[in-house]
Each structure stands twice: as structure tokens, then as C-alpha cells.
């Protein structure tokens, strides 16, 4: 067995055996070093790679946007959003389900992580949904699937990581996520409305809210809702970089917290704790994956793969199809951040050689990887949601079938209709 094959096997085995993701990836690297002593790689070089993977200013945006999202959550802004969503969609079939989806979309503009969003909504909305007659599986499923919208709406952690490792403009990626995010939101609302009608899930109110009621609910949510505009606008007009936008977002959240009189020392401390812990987990995976990716480069895997892909694919449409199937398969087994760092630097040059826009390719990549987090055996998003709601994985999957179908249709649409992702950035940036 070649050392590199050994590394892959060790990686998969460790991942399945409940070893923390970053330890699994580093364990695979160490297995490679031990199996291939002629390479002369030592622990010193390994840790150096890990640290060098973290030392990137664009990646600093991760703790910033995590902190901003957590702050908003602790400052009661989530509650304001929830009230607004209830008034906005209450008259639709499957009221609470619709609220769940719209809340994910709006919160997407504040936090960059789908896991945090899923955990929060599973806690806040699922108990009420079950009380009003939803099956536990369907309620959990709506929560988890709607959280996939969060990483599409800016700010998005996946876009930050993709942009920083492939040298793609993070500003463009941010804007490119908006249309797919909104499309997904409307499509999911449609599915929920059909299912709710058939299963007689209740509406929240019989009548559509009046303009006055909407305005009353919108006012307290208006300032938080303006944050994505501040971020996108600030980056677009060169006022600040995406990283600096993160720091500004924290400042904005702090000011809102003070203005709403919800900011106290104790919730500020919890906020800091959650931010450092979440950021560290993400960054350790980033560092470990950088080390693994370095081994692959060492072994000439990218070149070998590029030749193989070019041999199989005659044009870019075939290439996109092959990449999608490959990524869906990989996404089933490997955590999205790690997979992104290892695979994106290999695939993006090939995509560019085929004349595919890296921003378009990035959105397809990010969306595809997000689907993996919803499906077993390694679906983080699914596990987090089911962990909070105590829903069985089987029930979750059965109730999610329509959503899976929807996600695949959406993936194909995003892959073959580049204007879905590219129209808005071209408009905003005048490309």
C-alpha cells in the first residue's frame, strides 16, 4: 500500500470512530510521515504547516463574523427577527415552518455559520412546531435544511475560506450567494406550504398582516437587517476589506446591544467564550487540512488528478457534472471545511482552464459541500439538529425527501445556469 493510500484510510477510520475532526486529519498526516520516512518530514514541519495555514488575514474574518452573530443572538436580536418573521409569514400554510425558513434567511445576514443557526432554531422553534402538530422529523428537517441558506447569504464562512485559499474575491463571493439563497428560501417555502396543506398543519393567523402591523414588526428589526447592506456596501465601495467588515460588524452589534439595553457583562463573557471556542474548532480543522493538502502536493496528487480529469472530460459541462458527483460523494464522508481546503486548490485551476468563472464554481462547490452536511454518515448539520430535538436519523431522512429533491434541482440549476450566481455580482461590481 502506498503511504498516501494509508493516509486516506487512517483518515476515514478515525473520522468514523468519533475522533475529533482535526485530530483525524492530523493523524492521517502523521501516518503518512511514519509510512514514508524517506520524505524526511518531522513533527516540526507538520506543526509549521498547521500554523502557516492559520496565518492568513482573510481568515481572520471568521472569528469576527462568528462573534458578530453570537453577539446579535445574545442581544435579543434573534427575538426581534422572530417576531418580524411571524407577522410576515403567519398567514401562509405551515406558519411556523415558514417562520423557520425566513428566520434562517434573515439571520444568514448576521451570522455566517449554519451550525449555530440550526442549533438556535432547533431550540427556539421545534418545540412549538411539535406542539402545534408537526411531526418531529419534519420540524427537525425544516430546521436543518433551512439552515443551509445561512452560508449562502453574506457574510458566509464557507465563502471566506474558499476565497482565501483560491485567491478569489470574497466580496464577489458574498454577493454571488444572495440570489441562490433567496431562491432556495422561496422554493423551500413552497414545499412547506404544499406539505402543510396536505397534512393540515395550522397557520399562525387567518388573515394577512396589514401594512401597519408589518411596519410595527419591521421597525425593531430594521437596524439589524441593515447589517448585510453595510457589509456589502462597505466592501463594494472599497471602504473596508471583508476582514475589516467583520470587525465593523462586531462594532455594529455592540452598538445595537447597548442601544437596546440588552448588553451585560455576563452575556458578553458567554459571547467571547462561544466565539473563541467555535473559531478554534474551525481554525484547527483549517490548519490540519492545510498540512494534509501539503502532503498531497508533495505526492503530486493535484497534477495526477488534473490529468485524469482532463482525460475524462471533453468539455466544461461534463467536467461540472463529474465534479458535482465527486464532491457529493466526498461530502458524504469528509467534513466540509477540510474537504474545501484540500480539494478547492486542485479543482479551481482546472475549472478556470475550462473557462468557468471561479466565483460561479465557488458557489457550486460551497452549495454542494453543504448538501453533504445534511446527509449521513457525516452530516454535521443533521446531527446538531437531531441532537437538540432528539429526532431519530431515520425519521429525519424520511421527512426530508422533498427537500433533498429540491436541493439537487437547485444544485443542477446553479451548476448549469451561471447567471443565478453571477448576475448580481456583475451588476454590483459592473463586471
Amino acid at each position, binding site marked *: 500500500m502506498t503511504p498516501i493510500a494509508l493516509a486516506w484510510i487512517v483518515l476515514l477510520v478515525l473520522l468514523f*470512530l468519533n475522533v475529533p475532526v*482535526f485530530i483525524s486529519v492530523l493523524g492521517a498526516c502523521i501516518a503518512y510521515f511514519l509510512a514514508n520516512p524517506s520524505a524526511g518530514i518531522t513533527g516540526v514541519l507538520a*506543526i509549521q504547516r498547521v500554523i502557516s495555514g492559520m*496565518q492568513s488575514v482573510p481568515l*481572520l474574518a471568521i472569528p469576527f463574523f462568528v462573534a458578530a452573530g453570537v453577539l446579535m443572538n445574545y442581544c435579543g436580536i434573534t427575538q426581534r427577527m422572530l417576531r418580524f418573521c411571524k407577522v410576515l409569514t403567519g398567514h401562509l400554510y405551515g406558519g411556523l415552518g415558514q417562520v423557520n425558513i425566513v428566520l434562517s434567511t434573515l439571520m444568514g445576514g448576521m451570522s455566517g455559520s449554519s451550525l449555530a443557526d440550526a442549533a438556535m432554531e432547533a431550540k427556539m422553534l421545534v418545540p412549538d412546531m411539535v406542539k402545534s402538530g408537526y411531526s418531529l422529523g419534519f420540524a427537525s428537517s425544516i430546521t436543518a435544511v433551512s439552515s443551509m441558506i445561512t452560508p449562502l447569504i453574506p457574510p458566509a464562512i464557507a465563502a471566506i475560506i474558499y476565497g482565501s485559499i483560491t485567491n478569489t474575491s470574497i466580496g464577489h463571493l458574498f454577493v454571488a450567494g444572495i440570489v441562490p439563497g433567496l431562491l432556495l428560501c422561496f422554493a423551500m417555502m413552497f414545499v412547506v406550504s404544499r406539505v402543510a396543506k396536505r397534512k393540515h398543519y395550522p397557520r399562525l393567523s387567518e388573515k394577512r398582516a396589514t401594512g401597519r402591523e408589518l411596519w410595527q414588526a419591521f421597525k425593531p428589526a430594521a437596524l439589524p437587517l441593515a447589517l448585510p447592506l453595510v457589509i456589502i456596501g462597505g466592501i463594494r465601495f472599497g471602504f473596508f476589506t471583508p476582514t475589516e467588515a467583520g470587525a465593523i460588524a462586531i462594532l455594529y452589534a455592540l452598538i445595537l446591544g447597548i442601544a437596546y439595553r440588552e448588553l451585560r457583562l455576563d452575556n458578553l*463573557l458567554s459571547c*467571547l467564550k462561544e466565539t473563541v471556542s467555535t473559531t*478554534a474548532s474551525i481554525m484547527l480543522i483549517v490548519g490540519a487540512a492545510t498540512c494534509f493538502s501539503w502532503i498531497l502536493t508533495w505526492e503530486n496528487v493535484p497534477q495526477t488528478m488534473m490529468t485524469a480529469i482532463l482525460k475524462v472530460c471533453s468539455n466544461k459541462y461534463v467536467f461540472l457534472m463529474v465534479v458535482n458527483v465527486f464532491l457529493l460523494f466526498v461530502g458524504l464522508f469528509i467534513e466540509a471545511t477540510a474537504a474545501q481546503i484540500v480539494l478547492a486548490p486542485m479543482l479551481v485551476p482546472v475549472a478556470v482552464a475550462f473557462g468557468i468563472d471561479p466565483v460561479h464554481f465557488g458557489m457550486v462547490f460551497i452549495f454542494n459541500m453543504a448538501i453533504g452536511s445534511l446527509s449521513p454518515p457525516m452530516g454535521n448539520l443533521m446531527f446538531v439538529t437531531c441532537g437538540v430535538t432528539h429526532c431519530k436519523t431515520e425519521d429525519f431522512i424520511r421527512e426530508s425527501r422533498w427537500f433533498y429533491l429540491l436541493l439537487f434541482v437547485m444544485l443542477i440549476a446553479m451548476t448549469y445556469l451561471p447567471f443565478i450566481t453571477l448576475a448580481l455580482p456583475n451588476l454590483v461590481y459592473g463586471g
Partner: protein
Amino acid sequence: MLLSSCHKTQEMSTTMKKVLRWIGNLDFLIAALALIAIVCITVAGVVMRKFVNRPIAWLEEMQLFFFVWMVFFGASVAFRTGGQISIDIVAERLGTKQRRILDVFAYLVTMAVLIYLFFGGVGLAEAVTKKVTPYLRISYTLIDIAAPIGCALMVVQYSLLVIREWFFPEDAVAARKGGNAS
């Protein structure tokens, strides 16, 4: 005689607990201070560049310096609060006994990797004593030393977590809940 020694051990253990709690929060304190420092200098950077028109030259190296410290000390916090991402699909389906074997395995693998990294990190910190950052001339040893310290802290935190979960299960549940809420 016997009684007094008993009393003494108890006193010792409370002091031990206090020391442990202090160390346990020290990692959080350092990570949090690093985060606050990064946010402050980043905002200051925007202000200096846009309004004062004098960009801060040393901004990037200080950001990355604090970032590394924040990540490695935050990693210890993440282990303490059970925030590390792992996949428990197999573990969830096992009986108590097999589950215990799997936990031991995961623990040993994690320890082995962390100890390997610790020695790598110490070696790295020793190797870069002469290398300094371009503007403020901070030694890279000071930056890279965060990695072995972080690894050592993770070893301690993970061991404490495992000990608590295996020998004092009720305590561990309460602590985890407390950790999440506070």
C-alpha cells in the same frame, strides 16, 4: 491523626480544585484578550487608513500574532466545553461496553497526536529564535510557542473531561450544562 490527614487531603483537594479552575479559565482569558485585541487593532486600522490617512504598518503581523494565540488557547476552551467537532454516528449505535472501548481508543489517538504536535511545536519554537517579524521585530518563538502550549492545555483539558465523564458522570453532565449556559 487519621482524621487530621483526611482533613488535610480534603483541604489539598479544594486548593487543587481552585488552582485547576484558575488554570482552566486562564486559557479562556488569554484567548478572549487576544480576540479583543484583534478587533481593536483592526478597527483602529480602518480608522487610521480612512480618516487619518496613516495606515498602520505593523497591523498584519500583530493581527496574525494574536490570531495564533487565540486559536490555540481557544482550542483548549473548545475541548473543555465539548465544542470540538467529531462524528458520533458509529458511537451512538454501540452498547455501553463497546462505547467505552471506542472512547478509550479515541482518547488514546487524540493524546498521541497532541503529544506528537507538542514536541513538534517545541522544536519549531526552538528553531525560529532568530527569526523576527518585519516591523515590530517580535521573535517568531513568541508566536509559535502558542502551539505547544495549546497542545499541552488540550491534553490536560481532554484528560480532565474524560476523567470526569468516566468517574463522575453526573458531575460531568452538570458541568457541561454549566459550561454551555455560562
